[in-house]
């Protein structure tokens, strides 16, 4: 079984579905000969032809709108927005159309599309290339919001996203694209789109995160272990619909919870998890909930981005506060 990177896992899943389902079509900027600016679609145009892998003009609203039209007409478009910083012109189509097509036509027309986009900071990219707008998507009824944090989950979740009969937004953390390799079998087995993943069991503290921040969270859990603290780490993976049950079960056991995400804090998706606990797990809490997030500031240019990101030290500080709380 080959050890591959996350971006290779994305490529593998796309190839798998292109081969399996003739209605799958990829579209986006520079995804053809160039194989995508991160090479997520490398070789796919050569292998599946220009009729399956479409280089679009530079127009994100059109990319999303094309996908809506294709999906309603029976294709399974997998659209790429080159960076999440350029997804905003596509939001209108996602919110006003993709999410509603099935509902407003009472199931007559549907929108089985995927919108992939590389997200997140930490790769010293130019401005607008490091955004994490997942909370915006997760607020929209009718959409699904998925962010993998490992090659295996990228593969399995992307298969599931493409096979899902409804629109799925799929963010791929650029910081993880080539961070590490993992054995991934091209077995076509999808992962569930309605479940968190418990990456590490623990009894004293629940750490909840998703995307690239999972890795600082896991590192923090490792450091906590050295301090004698057993931290459970949950990768939310699918933010919408949210598997709150897994989180509540964990917090019910540990009584302490730190949520970690890269996006700005206010009205970030961490708030939804905190709210879910305050509603349904309140009295299991032994310490105040903590959020370790990007600050509520404009994402700084690259020289300061590491100061902005929730690093291991900040996660550890919050975890220690939670553990010390009496």
């Amino acid at each position, binding site marked *: 079984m080959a050890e591959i990177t996350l971006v290779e896992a994305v490529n593998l899943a796309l190839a798998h579905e292109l081969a399996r389902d003739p209605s799958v079509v990829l579209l986006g900027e520079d995804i053809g000969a160039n194989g995508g600016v991160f090479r997520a679609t490398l070789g796919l145009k050569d292998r599946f032809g220009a009729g399956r892998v479409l280089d679009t003009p530079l*127009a994100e609203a059109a990319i999303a*709108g094309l996908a809506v*039209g294709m999906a309603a007409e029976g294709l399974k478009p997998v659209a790429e927005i080159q960076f999440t910083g350029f997804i905003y012109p596509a939001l*209108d189509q996602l919110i006003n159309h993709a999410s509603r097509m099935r509902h407003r*036509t009472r199931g*007559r027309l549907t929108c089985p599309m995927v919108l992939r986009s590389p997200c997140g900071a930490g790769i010293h990219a130019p401005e607008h290339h490091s955004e994490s707008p997942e909370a915006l998507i997760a607020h929209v*009824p009718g959409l699904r919001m998925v962010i993998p944090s490992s090659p295996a989950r990228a593969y399995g979740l992307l298969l599931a996203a493409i096979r899902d009969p409804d629109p799925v937004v799929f963010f791929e953390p650029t910081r993880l694209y080539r961070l590490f390799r993992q054995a991934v079998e091209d077995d076509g087995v999808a992962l569930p789109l309605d479940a968190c993943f418990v990456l590490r069991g623990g009894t004293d503290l629940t750490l909840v995160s998703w995307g690239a921040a999972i890795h600082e969270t896991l590192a923090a859990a490792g450091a906590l272990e050295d301090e004698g603290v057993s931290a459970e780490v949950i990768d939310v993976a699918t933010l919408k619909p949210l598997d709150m049950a897994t989180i509540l079960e964990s917090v019910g056991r540990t009584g302490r919870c730190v949520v970690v995400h890269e996006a700005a804090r206010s009205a970030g998706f961490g708030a939804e998890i905190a709210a879910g606990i305050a509603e349904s797990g309140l009295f299991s809490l032994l310490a105040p909930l903590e959020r370790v997030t990007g600050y509520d500031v404009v994402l700084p240019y690259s020289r300061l981005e590491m100061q902005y990101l929730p690093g291991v030290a900040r996660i550890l500080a919050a975890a220690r506060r939670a553990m010390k709380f009496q």
Partner: protein
Amino acid sequence: MNVVASFQVERLEFLGAEGELLAPLPDFARDPEKLVALYRAMTLTRLFDARAVALQRTGQLGTFASSLGQEAVGTGVASAMREEDVLVPYYRDHGALLWRGVTMVESLLYWGGDERGCDYAGPRRDFPACVPIATQVTHAAGVACAMKLRGEPRVAVCMVGDGTTSKGDFYEGLNVAGVWHLPMVVVINNNRWAISVPLHAQTAAATLAQKAIAAGIEGLQVDGNDVIAVHEAARRAIERARAGGGPTLVEALTYRLGDHTTADDATRYRSAGEVERARRLEPRARLARYLERAGAWSGAAEERLRNECTERVEQAVREYLAVPPPAPAAMFEHLYAELPAALRPQREAALRAAGGERERG
């Protein structure tokens, strides 16, 4: 300076304002039966439309967008489509929807605030009316792209308003259609107003057809009050698209005789004189005059048609009014193919809340 490119915008018209012929009729129009069919459809559209406005005025319908005076556009275009083509309409396309087989009950349900009105029993693949301006143009391009990729001889036909041409996605859609050579036709209902904004405040372009030039596609203007011209222009464009000839932009020059919607009061921003002048150019009377002169229409036929249409409209209104409101559970139906487990508690809460309301009510 050297000239490196030149362009012309042409206008197509056959019937003058008095129903007189301005040019030799195209083939299809030589058969009076064909024209009578268009006339009947325009008449039904107009009566349906007026009845819908009346329903709104009496609180039996939500906000409604009348197509008064623009019936030749929808009827002319839809009648040039094949059944297997896909219509991607906007909210003022009653004539096109009726021709495509959307029922009046469905339309009334839609405007009455009931999603079931978009579940067309007839044209299953046609899109529901688009409200966010211009967003439908890229849908049509997507539909056309699907058709082209599958090698199907089908065409996506998209309807937009004049104000719509100012919005970015209108242009993005045309540009993609051009470079991908898609089987798509975009028809502009240029009714000269976008709510209160007249065309001259919308764009400095002398014609809307010339917006095609930016996308490198075919564009032409037609007299949108001349159903023969609209049908002929649409027919040529659709058949060219079907044959692999690429997309066309058709600008149909007409006029919005009514308010923007029932929520609007057009007297606030335009003169009665302008409306009166435009009324003299309206499409139904013009076709009637032509047909009468051609011996294909009569006062008696007109009366029969009106009665028949009124009866059909009233029947639809009765059926519409008899439809009970959707159950609260409908909010959770068709949200996803299957309701995610995370949403079940909300659904139950909604049903409980609705039950409570009912108990108290």
